[in-house]
């Protein structure tokens, strides 16, 4: 008769694979001085061997690396497949492009991690302490300056500057000069507008203003300026650039840093717990820069004549025969740009912390390491932008017209008969917009917020779908504008008027979500890609400029979200009415009405 043991008892008895160490042996014994007080002992730094460091670092790196791979690789693969299957052209420099894409992935990975370690601690400390310690005007001044700083640090701004090199000075003198001689002023104006938007958005948190009148007040002068510029033959080419600038500003640096400050101010005033706090700044930050750029363009047009600009450009190109300095040629330029983008912001944040708040910096080493990572990431990303994203976007853009028309330098063009090729090109851009938006991580977060905000009336899935649909249709419309060459304001003025009408009809929650969703969709990967694609199409079509796709991609989701919001509300209202009519109300009907 065999004896019976409980397996648990057996395991406990033999203690399989367990080693017991007393914690007292690991820690130094407490020492007392002669008075019996404890002497504090500095514990030595923990030393890890190579294997342990590998085990610690590997999951940390792989999570971040894969996060970026997931957003970049599907887009790149889609673009390549489109080139090979539909356009039947193989990318000649695929090694360079692969390297560039790798640089984009690595650069974004370092940049985002550096942002988290190095810049966000500043943002949270300043956001939570500054509003309590300083008077409101000073806080608003810091907000304004922060808006300028973050715009310079935004990775997508580099793409805008790069776009200036391909503009012909004879065809569009004002566009050329804004992107070249005046490019510093352009970014400055955009930054100032973002700063003003942040100030106004913060005041809105504080006093609980509705977003609707702000949208009307920003849009009316904007549409007037658009029409005024579009009817002026010299300024016509600036319209696309101005509207695209709005989409570029709301990226991964601006949104969290400005929001941290705005929400901090609101909560210091005891107004932070409204569900809508945090919304609105993104909206204003994507509308104000457009006004700013238009005003700058008008200023330039009053001070300079087109002839002067052309003469100056020819003069400059004649003078540029001397060898450019190291910071003006490719690898050096990107690095210089990266350093110049981040350092002013860091110095500004540090000065605010030291001079105004007089707060010590916690985890100094970690923060400095994070800043270093941010700069390194920005430099690598800029390299990737030049050799990867902008190149592939430009190449595909240059090839798209070959699908339906004769393009110089491509033997088989037109590849398809006009109608088929045109449909393929539009369908391609539609799918690109839809896929890229669905993959955007920031949109998921917005979806969760929306579902909470509207008590489940507006489902996360509905938001994801309608935003993606809006972006897709917007990009197609922008591409159609380039292909058929009609002026951009034909598209902008009616769609924004429609958006204003929908804003008037919708409730506050939907207005907030809808207008903010536009800023969310234009991340650091979508912006350079779409911008480069548009410019590529533009130059292949011999169009004056290729801007305008991005701004259509931001108005698309606004309209789509508000329409589906109105529809969701209408449906909920109808169900509620039906439930009231059909007495007695069953529980399942009640539940449905709530949905």
């Amino acid at each position, binding site marked *: 008769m065999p004896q019976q043991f409980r397996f648990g008892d057996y395991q406990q008895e033999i203690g399989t694979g367990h080693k017991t160490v007393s914690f007292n042996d690991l820690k130094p014994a407490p020492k007392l001085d002669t008075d019996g007080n404890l002497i504090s002992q500095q514990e030595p730094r923990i030393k*890890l061997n190579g294997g342990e460091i590998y085990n610690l670092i590997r999951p940390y790196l792989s999570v971040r690396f894969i996060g970026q791979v997931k957003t970049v690789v599907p887009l790149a693969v889609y673009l390549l497949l489109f080139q090979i299957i539909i356009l039947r052209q193989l990318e000649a420099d695929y090694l360079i492009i692969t390297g560039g894409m790798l640089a984009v992935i690595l650069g974004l990975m370092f940049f985002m991690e550096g942002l988290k370690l190095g810049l966000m601690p500043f943002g949270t400390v300043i956001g939570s302490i500054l509003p309590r310690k300083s008077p409101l005007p000073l806080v608003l001044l810091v907000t304004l300056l922060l808006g300028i700083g973050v715009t310079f640090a935004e990775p997508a701004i580099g793409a805008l500057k790069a776009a200036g090199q391909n503009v012909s000075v004879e065809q569009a003198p004002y566009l050329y000069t804004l992107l070249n001689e005046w490019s510093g002023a352009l970014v400055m104006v955009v930054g100032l507008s973002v700063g003003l938007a942040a100030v106004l958005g913060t005041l809105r948190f504080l006093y609980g203003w509705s977003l609707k009148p702000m949208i009307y007040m920003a849009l009316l002068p904007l549409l007037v300026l658009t029409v005024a510029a579009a009817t002026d033959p010299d300024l016509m080419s600036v319209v696309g650039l101005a509207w695209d600038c709005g989409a570029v500003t709301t990226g991964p640096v601006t949104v969290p840093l400005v929001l941290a400050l705005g929400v901090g101010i609101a909560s210091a005033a005891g107004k932070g717990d409204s569900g809508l706090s945090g919304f609105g700044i993104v909206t204003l930050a994507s509308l104000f820069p457009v006004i700013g750029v238009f005003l700058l363009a008008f200023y330039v047009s009053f001070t300079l004549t087109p002839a002067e600009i052309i003469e100056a450009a020819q003069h400059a190109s004649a003078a540029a025969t001397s060898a450019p300095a190291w910071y003006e040629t490719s690898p050096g330029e990107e690095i210089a740009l990266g350093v110049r983008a981040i350092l002013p912001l860091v110095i500004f944040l540090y000065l605010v912390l030291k001079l105004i708040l007089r707060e010590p910096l916690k985890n100094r080493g970690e923060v400095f390491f994070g800043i270093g990572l941010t700069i390194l990431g920005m430099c690598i990303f800029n390299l990737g932008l030049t050799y990867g994203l902008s190149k592939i976007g430009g190449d595909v853009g240059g090839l798209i017209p070959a699908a339906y028309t004769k393009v110089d330098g491509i033997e088989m063009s037109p590849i398809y008969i006009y109608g088929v090729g045109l449909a393929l090109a539009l369908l391609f851009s539609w799918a690109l917009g839809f896929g890229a938006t669905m993959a955007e991580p920031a949109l998921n977060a917005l979806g969760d917020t929306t579902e909470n905000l509207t008590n489940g009336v507006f489902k996360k899935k509905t938001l994801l779908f309608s935003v993606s649909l809006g972006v897709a249709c917007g990009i197609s419309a922008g591409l159609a504008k380039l292909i058929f060459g009609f002026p951009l304001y034909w598209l902008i003025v009616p769609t924004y008027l429609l958006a204003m009408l929908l804003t008037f009809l919708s409730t506050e929650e939907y207005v907030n979500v809808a207008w903010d969703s536009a800023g969310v969709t234009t991340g650091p990967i979508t912006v350079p890609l779409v911008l480069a694609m548009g410019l590529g199409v533009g130059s292949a079509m011999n169009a004056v400029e290729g801007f305008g796709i991005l701004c259509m991609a931001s108005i698309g989701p606004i309209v789509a979200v508000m329409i589906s919001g109105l529809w969701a509300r209408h449906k909920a209202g109808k169900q509620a009415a039906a439930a009231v009519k059909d007495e007695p109300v069953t529980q399942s009907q009640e539940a449905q009405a709530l949905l």
Partner: protein
Amino acid sequence: MTILTDVSLITCVVKQDMSDAILKAALEAGALTGAISYHARGHGARERLGLVGIAVEAEKDVISLLVSSEQRDTVFDAVFHAGNLNVPGNGHQYITPLEKVATYVPEDMLTRLAKTKQGA
């Protein structure tokens, strides 16, 4: 009032993205009742590791598991393996013996318990 004795509390402090896997493993190992989890921020290792410390996620999930003292070691092992706690930065767990636990015990469980006690 029914009072439960022979209960142990296993507290697991683990990486956020692993907490779902750990809860699943713990439930499979028999910790079917009394699991709660909450967010927390860890301190210590990050500061003492120097530069590699940034790889230690400060945001942690804390999972509290109430287990019978017989299940204790099985669940303890299951959590250890599911959470890869033998890797630096992944967290730790500890067992606290509990003197008494009071809660509602379903009638059916009590009658069944009485029957088996009689049978024995």
